[in-house]
């Protein structure tokens, strides 16, 4: 692909004390792409997302957004720039209502009318959230909470959505439902970096994938290539 990438990681490395969680990661994301970041537990997937959102400082390497380094940005700053991060474990605000969770997703936006319109569209896309809009988010089922977490990220109108293991702990039918929504968002033009352990589900909707193993890239390629790769099939697809 050509042009300045939306997001570029070059030689990105992160340490937690003595633990080298990520090393030498190169990754470019172009507008409209859905990239799957795969790997087993502890491979460094969440760490990659945390580094992009400036929740952890890289020990080496750099991150650029539209060609500009992110090194000085705060976490709030990355949200302002258009990077939405839907973290591991959903993290809905359990004590707040569904509606308040969604409103807080639009915290940095000031266009009241746009927010109201997006809220309506969100309730159309996620009818179950509409039914439960006055309920405490903590009372929702796991699948509903995952939908809420995604919907809340969308309320911020991100250009890039970082999604951390949305399929975790969901029944297969719900996993399919979540992936269908992500595919639809991609068709609408959203750029998505999807972190998953469920490689099969993720590659089914992704343009390409990167596989991490103990902090290093072990494989990368188009979704079709990866799905046909014997080594990947053996270790992740079963």
């Amino acid at each position: 692909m050509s042009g300045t990438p939306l997001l570029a990681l070059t030689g990105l490395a992160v340490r937690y004390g003595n633990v080298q969680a990520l090393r030498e990661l190169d990754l470019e994301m172009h507008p409209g792409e859905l990239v799957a970041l795969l790997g087993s537990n502890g491979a460094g997937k969440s760490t990659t997302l945390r580094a992009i959102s400036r929740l952890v400082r890289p020990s080496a390497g750099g991150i650029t957004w539209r060609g500009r380094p992110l090194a000085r940005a705060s976490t709030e700053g990355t949200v302002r720039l258009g990077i939405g991060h839907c973290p591991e474990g959903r993290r809905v605000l359990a004590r707040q209502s569904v509606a308040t969770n969604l409103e807080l997703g639009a915290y940095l936006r000031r266009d009241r009318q746009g927010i109201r319109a997006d809220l309506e569209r969100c309730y159309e896309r996620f009818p179950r959230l509409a039914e439960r809009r006055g309920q405490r988010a903590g009372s929702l089922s796991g699948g509903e909470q995952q939908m809420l977490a995604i919907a809340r990220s969308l309320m911020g109108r991100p250009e890039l959505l970082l999604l951390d293991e949305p399929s975790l702990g969901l029944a297969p039918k719900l996993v399919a439902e979540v992936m269908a929504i992500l595919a639809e968002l991609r068709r609408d033009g959203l750029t998505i970096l999807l972190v998953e352990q469920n490689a099969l589900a993720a590659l089914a909707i992704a343009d390409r994938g990167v596989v991490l193993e103990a902090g290093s890239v072990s494989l990368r390629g188009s979704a079709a290539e990866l799905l046909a790769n014997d080594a990947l099939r053996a270790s992740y697809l079963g």
Partner: protein
Amino acid sequence: MDHLLQILVNGLSAGAVYALFALGYTLVFSVLGVINFAHGAVFTLGAYFTYLLIGGPVGANGALAGFRLPFALPFWLALAVAGLGAALVSLLVEATAFAPLRRQRSDPLLTLISSLGAGVVLVNLVQILMGAESYAIPAGTLAGLPAAVNLGGATVRTVQLLLMGIAALVLVVLTLWLERSRSGKALQAVSEDPLMARLLGIPAGSMIRLAFAISGFLAGVAGGLVGLSVSIAGPYFGIGFGLKGLGVLVLGGLGSVPGAVLGGLVVGLAEALVPAEFSGTKDGVAYAFLFLMLMLRPQGLLGRPQSSKV
């Protein structure tokens, strides 16, 4: 024998002070999960600010002996300005005793000590500048209002009504703000999940400062009103209230806004029920009562059960 209504009014107005105190603790606790031990000192400063702003002179023992502001504000204005001054002091406490430790990501429990230190410094500053003597805010300050009214046989001092009214008003305004406004909801988000709040773009630092400013304002106003109600007994007079406010906070349920008010009223009433001839045992009764309540309901009256982190 005291009239029952009299006891009720005395209890509720004392309880209103504790409630205002505990609300300030609650706000800061809900965003940081720690107690601000300088809160009592901010309350004390609010009382002294009010005294000075209505044109009161500094007594003979302070470094500022004989000083008096070149103007004298009416009580209401003085109280509001004192509240703002206390809010500034509270922000200063945040900047010196909380923010540096937070930037170094140290254990939040350490701020118990640094805020206690900030409180001691503030109280000593008052002692140096204003001396250790007591100051009275003259009755008759409430321009136009009678000092007391008679309600069905009970003599109710106007300042008692004010305290109750202001505590009720604060409860309503604070609840509406927290539940309805964008910044109130954001503050609750920081309180529930600081990391997620940051990922939503909510600036945690500003929310923390907001909580300190509001909490300081409430303490300052409470200080001024108590100064009017029972006089300022010296630089340390906030400490007793501070401790009881802390008990009230725990009784109401840590972090619960209605709990803080309910807890305040309950403790105020428990104290007021102590007969006048035993009034020396008031504090003992209040704390014994707190102790009993917490044995029965460790999470406080309106608190959520605390999940153990051990």
